[in-house]
């Protein structure tokens, strides 16, 4: 009984994090992006500097009419947002926050392997959206999305494999237990490659070409309105949470604090995730977007060779030491 309660509690916490953190990051993005552009951002919703803006947006989306185009594949069209959103929820279960045994939703022994496999399912959501919309532009956008997500999945896989090599395990709590401070410079190339590839996985600027307004309306999501559209957006922000969480856990030492100050591990984790989320927003504001061919070129000719080099380095160091 205790066990069942414990599991229920964990699931509720994970679900709450899944709903709240993306909204916090979204609101931060509104404000940070605004100030970086010399303006104020939302100020009215909720009274104090517009903190309730995204809540208001959620209510707005819920009461919008649901338009399914006449020629679309109805069921596939309707299910695509769910397929894009749920993988991120599953991944959140496996990310550890603190040092103790209980500081994770569920210890999944397949760890990073499970995480990456599940994230790969998210690609299906975009493909379903693009195909089912019965819209040439959606189809083209969906294919570009799929090509981009596939191409950038590989550097993520390879660099994550490098960390697994360094730790000798694929379980995420195991990786954190084995973390040493000198992993930071050792895996720095892998960290940058993972982060950049993750940004492209999420289709965040500067890699948002398939979903950019001025490029192809909204790519695979063109025909979506209201709640389904909101779920796609929630998926993007949940993805930011997941990406920052994964980068923290794999490359930045998760709950480890500087100079061994490991107490209050979850504070360190949240701090690192916050800094990484800020960097994600910062990159969005600063850089123009890359063209499709530049995107692919970056993945295949820069990131994958770098990831392979990182694996080579990790392997040699690990065997030699």
């Amino acid at each position, binding site marked *: 009984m205790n066990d069942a309660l414990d599991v229920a509690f964990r699931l509720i916490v994970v679900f709450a994090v899944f709903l709240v953190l993306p909204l916090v990051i979204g609101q931060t993005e509104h404000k940070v992006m605004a*100030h*970086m552009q010399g*303006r104020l951002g939302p100020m009215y919703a909720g009274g104090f500097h517009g903190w309730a803006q995204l809540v208001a947006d959620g209510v707005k989306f819920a009461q919008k009419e649901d338009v399914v185009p006449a020629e679309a594949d109805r069921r596939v069209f309707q299910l695509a947002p769910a397929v894009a959103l749920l993988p991120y929820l599953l991944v959140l279960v496996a990310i550890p926050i603190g040092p103790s045994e209980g500081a994770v939703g569920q210890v999944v022994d397949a760890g990073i392997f499970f995480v990456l496999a599940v994230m790969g399912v998210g690609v299906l959501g975009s493909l379903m959206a693009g195909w089912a919309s019965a819209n040439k532009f959606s189809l083209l956008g969906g294919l570009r999305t799929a090509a981009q997500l596939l191409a950038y999945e590989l550097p993520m896989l390879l660099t994550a494999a490098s960390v697994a090599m360094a730790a000798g395990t694929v379980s995420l709590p195991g990786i954190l237990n084995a973390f040493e401070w000198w992993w930071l410079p050792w895996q720095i190339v892998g960290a940058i490659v993972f982060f950049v590839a993750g940004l492209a996985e999420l289709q965040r600027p500067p890699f948002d070409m398939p979903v950019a307004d001025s490029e192809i309306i909204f790519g695979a999501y063109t025909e979506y309105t209201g709640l389904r559209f909101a779920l796609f957006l929630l998926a993007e922000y949940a993805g930011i949470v997941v990406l920052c969480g994964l980068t923290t856990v794999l490359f930045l030492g998760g709950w480890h604090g500087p100079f061994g100050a490991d107490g209050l591990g979850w504070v360190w984790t949240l701090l690192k995730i916050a800094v990484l989320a800020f960097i994600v927003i*910062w990159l969005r504001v*600063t850089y123009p977007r890359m063209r499709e061919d530049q995107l692919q070129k970056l993945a295949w000719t820069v990131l994958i060779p770098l990831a392979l080099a990182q694996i080579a380095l990790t392997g040699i160091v690990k065997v030699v030491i």
Partner: protein
Amino acid sequence: MSPIPGSGLAKGLAVTLRTMTKKTVTAQYPDVQPELPPRSRGVIGLFEENCTVCMLCARECPDWCIYIDSHKETVPAAVPGGRERSRNVLDRFAIDFSLCMYCGICIEVCPFDALFWSPEFEYAETDIRELTHERDKLREWMWTVPAPPALDPGAEEPKEIGAARKTAEKLAAAEADASTPPGVGTPPGVGGVPPGAAERPADESGPASGQGGPA
């Protein structure tokens, strides 16, 4: 020397970060009213007392947005045996702000200073017919007309202020003249210029020979 690869990227990041730390200049209208410059053209006010219904403003308006109606009235002679005068009386004065292009020609051309600019701009309406402001509304706008902005320190004194000041000095000189008996000391009429006016530029002709005092 070729730039380090990636330096442009880093510079971009620095720019956005610096902008984030600076205070924004956004003014949150309507909680905060905008700071309008002096002589802002918002709306036109009519001071009926000055208007002689000469119709110059209606004639000169490029958009024909001023509507004036008037009639003539006879005024009895001022002195017995004199000629009767006729006066223009204003019936209707309306400015159609849906047509007005805010050029200000009507205000410039009015010889009697009956029209004034006011910086009020919040008079949007949902019905276009309400944008034609009649006499009463134009009089309301007069109370929002600000004082004219101060002249530069080195500017010439405005003519009307100069005329008013000279009249006041003449009156004061005449009074002082009347209060002191003649023959005591230098008659203040000689030279005729009170000490305060000695600094004025020499192009003034009035009080310099002010023996006669005011007419």
